[in-house]
């Protein structure tokens, strides 16, 4: 660029003086007036630049927060992995507390100390011992039913044999006291070893699959009325011509438990029929309510589907005919309520 094009003249100095003077006056304005002027500029000529700056700052913050977000995501994922186990444990403890409230007295709560030994299939170590009032032959129960029996007792811990132990025996009966027998472990390979056997059932007595087997209280070790399991079928044994043997699915599985109750001798004399009977009643009531809810949802979905189909079918017809379809669906409402009541009953 030529020097003459940018020659310094008096007008340049005047222009500079004017700019500096105006800037000085702007600087001297009161705060409120400056804010008004600045705000006006931000909303008009500078608005695109303000938007660019805001987006850039947001991008930078997002970039900086990325590491923290990844860390938080990882932490959440880690916690989410633990949540199901905690929920399961929480549920177990709730049910155990409920069992304790129903029994009210005569029990010692204990934790199952799960080890990795081979014998863990048959025995467990419990965190309560002699000092807590635990004695040998005390029954060990869970909210779902019988787990086993205390074998040895130390001052602070004890060992119990589980229902899967070959030496485990409990006198059992059906709910109506019509059939008695002895429940023992079903010995065999791994899948079958998770079952029990109800032995010594008279040939004249037959049990249907689904029959619940309870402790009978005979023998004085296990109190009457603890759920042991459910009959799933008859085990054919040619050698036992005078008696039947039934396979029983255990009510409680020790591997899934972390806490149990050890019953004390005072309770054994009284029997525990009322404790688990109320649990069964409550469980069955809950199941019925859930089933009724599902049924209602299913009926509502079916109604919606029918209404949609009716709307599609009557689409060309005028609106008055569609009103009729809606009225019909309303008339079906009492029927739904009746079915729900039937489910609850």
């Amino acid at each position, binding site marked *: 660029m030529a020097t003459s094009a*940018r*020659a310094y003249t008096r007008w340049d100095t005047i222009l500079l003086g004017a700019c*500096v003077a105006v*800037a000085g006056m702007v*600087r001297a304005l009161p705060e409120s007036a*400056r804010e008004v002027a600045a705000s006006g500029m931000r909303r008009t000529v*500078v608005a695109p*630049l303000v938007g660019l700056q805001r*987006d850039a700052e947001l991008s930078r913050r997002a970039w900086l927060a990325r590491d923290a977000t990844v860390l938080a995501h990882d932490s959440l994922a880690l916690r989410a992995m633990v949540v199901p186990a905690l929920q399961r444990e929480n549920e177990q403890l709730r049910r155990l507390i409920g069992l304790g409230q129903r029994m009210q007295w005569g029990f010692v709560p204990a934790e199952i100390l799960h080890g990795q030994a081979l014998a863990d299939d048959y025995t467990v170590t419990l965190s309560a011992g002699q000092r807590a009032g635990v004695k040998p032959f005390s029954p060990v129960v869970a909210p779902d039913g019988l787990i086993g029996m205390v074998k040895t007792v130390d001052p602070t811990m004890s060992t119990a044999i589980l229902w899967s132990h070959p030496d485990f025996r409990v006198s059992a009966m059906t709910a109506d006291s019509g059939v008695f027998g002895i429940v023992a472990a079903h010995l065999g390979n791994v899948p079958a070893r998770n079952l029990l056997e109800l032995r010594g059932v008279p040939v004249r007595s037959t049990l249907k699959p689904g029959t619940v087997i309870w402790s009978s209280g005979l023998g004085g070790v296990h109190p009457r009325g603890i759920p042991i399991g459910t009959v799933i079928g008859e085990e054919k044994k040619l050698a036992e011509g005078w008696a039947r043997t039934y396979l029983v699915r255990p009510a409680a599985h020790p591997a899934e438990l972390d806490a149990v109750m050890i019953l004390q001798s005072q309770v054994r004399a009284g029997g525990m029929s009322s404790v688990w009977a109320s649990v069964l009643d409550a469980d069955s009531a809950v199941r019925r309510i859930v089933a009724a809810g599902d049924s209602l949802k299913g009926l509502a979905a079916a109604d919606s589907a029918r209404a949609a189909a009716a709307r599609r079918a009557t689409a060309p017809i005028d609106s008055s005919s569609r009103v009729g379809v809606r009225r019909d669906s309303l008339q079906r409402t009492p029927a739904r309520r009746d079915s729900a009541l039937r489910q609850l009953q």
Partner: protein
Amino acid sequence: MRSWAGLRTALAFVILVVLHYTLRPMLGWRAEPDFLVIALLLVAIRVRPGAAALLGFFTGMVADSLAVHAFGASAMAMSAIAFSASWLKAVFFADNMALNAFFFFVGKWVYNAVYLLAERRFGGGELLMQILVWSSLSAAVTAFAGLATLLVLRPMLRTSMS
């Protein structure tokens, strides 16, 4: 031809202004490059001192609109450095890169000094620290960014200078 060169200079100015409001916030450095000063100086050395002062005033007002507490300070500082740049360019004809870098350094440093004095936010030792340390650092970063800009925009700006 002359208007075409002016258009390209204006385009370079717009690019640098946009960079100021996009790249600079993303960098987030304590001593940031000032693309507004670079843009202003690049244009100022190509126009008359009075026009440069006017451009500096309006550019400063844009910068001030986002910093209400110092409203007017940038306008004053940019008017001064734009006028000075245009006048000095007429005197020295500095066309080599090193001199341009020094030009950007001085421009940014003077801008910061005038701005801080007009803003009246700091005083005493803190003001000295701002002017001597942080303004110098910022001026150095601006000079580096200005050089990079010159290298990138050289084809565009060389034509407009002739």
